[in-house]
């Protein structure tokens, strides 16, 4: 049940109607049942795993709070979460590398393992909860259904954003029916996310899939830049579209998720990029990996080491593949270089047109990173980067209409950098909000691709 399908909207309509009309006491079980139904609609076999991890972390948190063996409880929880993740996501990767080291066929130790949907996201969410309880920043949740809902809540279950327990339980335990402003913002985010996904990301996916599907046969710098640019746009519109919808759906149910993307392609440095891109993941990596490693508190060399470890693991989190490791390492290296050059300071001033050159350089560097992210092998990635270094010749592979839509998106992003458009939508009269939503739906209607292309981040 993908967010942009009719079946999902029917599901959401039924869920939200039952939710608001149901007696107060049954709403948590109802949302939980809907969430498990949503999850099992992909593959019912994943549900026991989700339930097992939920039970372990629920008990571990209570154990941490009540027992003197807090470290043991934390260790059990971390080992369970990371153990499941390692087995399901990284076993075959490790097995193929061991086989290669031993000179054996790389599938020698393979198991036929299906990656459970959303495991990377709900595992990180569970870890953040248990660690917060351990640190005393979060009380252990006593009601098992409440905790189960936090992990399984359907808007964010399969691809985030990674929601912190304090944010979720703040809303759950002090729930308000959404205000008119919330409803307008939520509805707008759903329509905006839908437009980003089906009108933009999917169209760019056609171009990037065509290019990366047969890199060897598509010579020329223009094709390479076009393919990479298309992927840069695809992954942004796809993932930010998904999270916009997730945030919007949650808000319509009275839950407030944090912003996950903030015009990342306007970033003026790689440091700035990671403050704008997949914010819930980058802040998770900062709080639960980079800072525990020592952050920037132990000198420059330690800081660079911590940055590299964090980004390498961040890369590996995206997928069990050397390409992702290289992608993470590349970003770690760029972040370290920016620190070395004194370019990593937090910017508190507003974006201006004087930032254009730096934004372009940053975008190009990000695009080079995306080559590793998207290419099917390191060899292909090297081939593409080699072509990008050539003088661009040949035909630009992206349709003018799509470029125009992207340009319109860029203008909106530039305006958003100075004027918070979402707040403007919130404050607007209802008919204006409906007009904006209707226009976004019109873009969806006209530019959607006639194929169900899954969200990119579902594979992680």
């Amino acid at each position, binding site marked *: 049940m993908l967010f942009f399908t009719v079946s999902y909207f029917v599901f959401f309509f039924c869920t939200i109607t039952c939710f608001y009309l149901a007696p107060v006491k049954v709403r948590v079980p109802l949302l939980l049942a809907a969430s498990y139904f949503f999850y099992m609609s992909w593959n019912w076999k994943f549900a026991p795993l989700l339930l097992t991890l939920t039970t372990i972390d629920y008990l571990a948190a209570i154990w941490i709070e009540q027992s003197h063996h807090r470290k043991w409880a934390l260790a059990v929880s971390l080992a369970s979460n990371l153990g499941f993740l390692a087995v399901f996501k990284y076993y075959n990767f490790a097995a193929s590398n061991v086989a290669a080291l031993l000179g054996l066929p790389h599938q020698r130790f393979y198991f036929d393992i299906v990656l459970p949907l959303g495991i990377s996201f709900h595992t990180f969410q569970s870890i953040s909860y248990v660690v917060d309880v351990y640190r005393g920043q979060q009380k252990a949740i006593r009601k098992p259904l409440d905790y189960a809902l936090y992990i399984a809540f359907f808007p964010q279950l399969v691809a985030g954003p990674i929601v912190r327990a304090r944010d979720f339980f703040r809303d759950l335990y002090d729930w308000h029916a959404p205000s008119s402003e919330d409803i307008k913002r939520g509805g707008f985010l759903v329509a905006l996310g839908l437009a980003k996904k089906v009108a933009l990301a999917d169209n760019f996916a056609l171009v990037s899939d065509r290019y990366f599907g047969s890199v060897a046969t598509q010579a020329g710098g223009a094709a390479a830049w076009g393919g990479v640019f298309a992927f840069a746009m695809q992954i942004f519109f796809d993932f930010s579209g998904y999270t916009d919808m997730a945030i919007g759906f949650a808000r319509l149910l009275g839950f407030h998720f944090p912003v996950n993307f903030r015009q990342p392609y306007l970033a003026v440095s790689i440091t700035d990029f990671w403050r704008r891109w997949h914010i819930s993941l980058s802040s998770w990596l900062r709080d639960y990996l980079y800072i525990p490693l020592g952050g920037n508190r132990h000198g420059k060399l330690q800081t660079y080491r911590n940055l590299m470890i964090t980004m390498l693991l961040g890369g590996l989190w995206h997928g069990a593949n050397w390409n992702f490791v290289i992608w993470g390492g590349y970003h770690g290296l760029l972040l370290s270089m920016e620190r070395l050059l004194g370019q990593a300071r937090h910017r508190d001033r507003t974006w201006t047109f004087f930032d254009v050159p730096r934004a372009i350089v940053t975008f190009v560097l990000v695009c080079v990173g995306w080559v590793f992210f998207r290419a099917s092998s390191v060899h292909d990635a090297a081939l593409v980067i080699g072509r990008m270094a050539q003088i661009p010749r040949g035909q630009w592979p992206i349709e003018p*209409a799509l470029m125009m839509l992207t340009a319109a998106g860029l203008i909106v992003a530039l305006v958003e950098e100075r004027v918070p458009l979402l707040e403007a939508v919130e404050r607007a009269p209802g008919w204006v909000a409906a007009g904006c939503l209707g226009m976004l739906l019109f873009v969806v209607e006209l530019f959607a691709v006639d194929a169900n292309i899954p969200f990119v981040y579902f594979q992680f």
Partner: protein
Amino acid sequence: MPAEALSREVSTSEPIRRSSAADRQALGKILLLGFSSLFVLFLLDAALFRTGFYVQYLEPFSSAGNFEAILAAGQQQQFTKPHHVLVLGDSQVSEGFSPKIADAAAAPSGWQFFNAAVGGSSMRCWYYMVRDLDPDRTRFDVIVLPLRGYADVDDEVIRADRDIDVHWVIARLGLADIPAFVLSFRAPLERLEMFRESLFKGLVYRRDLRELLRDPAQRMQHVKDCRAACADSFYGYPGRTENLKGVWMDWTTDTVHFPEGISPQIQAEMKLHVHFRDWSVRGLERAYRQAWLGRIIERYQGTRTKFVLISLPYHPFPIPFSWPAGPDSFAAQASRNSRVTVLDEHLFNDLERPEFFFDVFHMNQTGRALFSNRLARALTQQFGAGRSSQ
């Protein structure tokens, strides 16, 4: 997000405990926003696709573009003879029937033909063609309805469920047409899809729109060129010259044998369409014919227009299997209507020969000439030189 909500302390009190009146109000607002945004979408969609603005720039060789071009040619057709015949059909008729040849054959009797057949169209589409070609129900003396035999044989395609029909008739579907159009499909999911597409026409037109946006100037020029040439090209189209001479069918093994020179594509198509033994009469085709041809006939109730049912030359070889056209078949029932004439089912049987076809379904230039001549003569013989009875 209100700022004070963020700073509230986390408590483990009972979750979700607000009054249900406020909740119902929130639900009402959500639904209102949802439905009003859909209404805005409908207005935008209607402004572009229901005003006739977009239709004039449709790709002329697309399904809807071709349908509209033939419809426009029919609407502009100036009849110079006193008696007018409309011939409906799909590509078998558009390839197999020449109004020019038929006009020549029937000229002494004062008959004039218009071929409204559209490649790929179905009986469902023909209804909308007739309706918009002849809104006052006064233009035609005779309407020819072609059938693939008079037994209502069901093959591997269930025509009632052919959802691609919407791509031919999309420009014709008004709001009032939506219920009947949607309900003519059988499966609930298909009905839902047809409802969406006939309400929000952009869902059907979007591929064409994107083609247009690739090079708008070129599309405009192409449309202009086609419009200038289309009426003449429809009327004067001579048909294809290739033929299947030498092709023969071994009916004991259902195998087609080809001589040298037949293209691999035609060979593949012919091999695909030899499974006549699987055909049977299950009632679906009968219901479908009744629904749409019956509706066309019904529409002319109380007018002077008469209908002629013909059995088309369907295949390069006469099919040696026969299915009974029982008394409850559509043709048998229609023949009880005084305004309907059912021509002899075997009238065109001798045209089912490889030398008169250029592929598995379509007659070539020679077959086209013979069929057009014979149909014109059959009609003039049937109805004579005078107007059909009032």
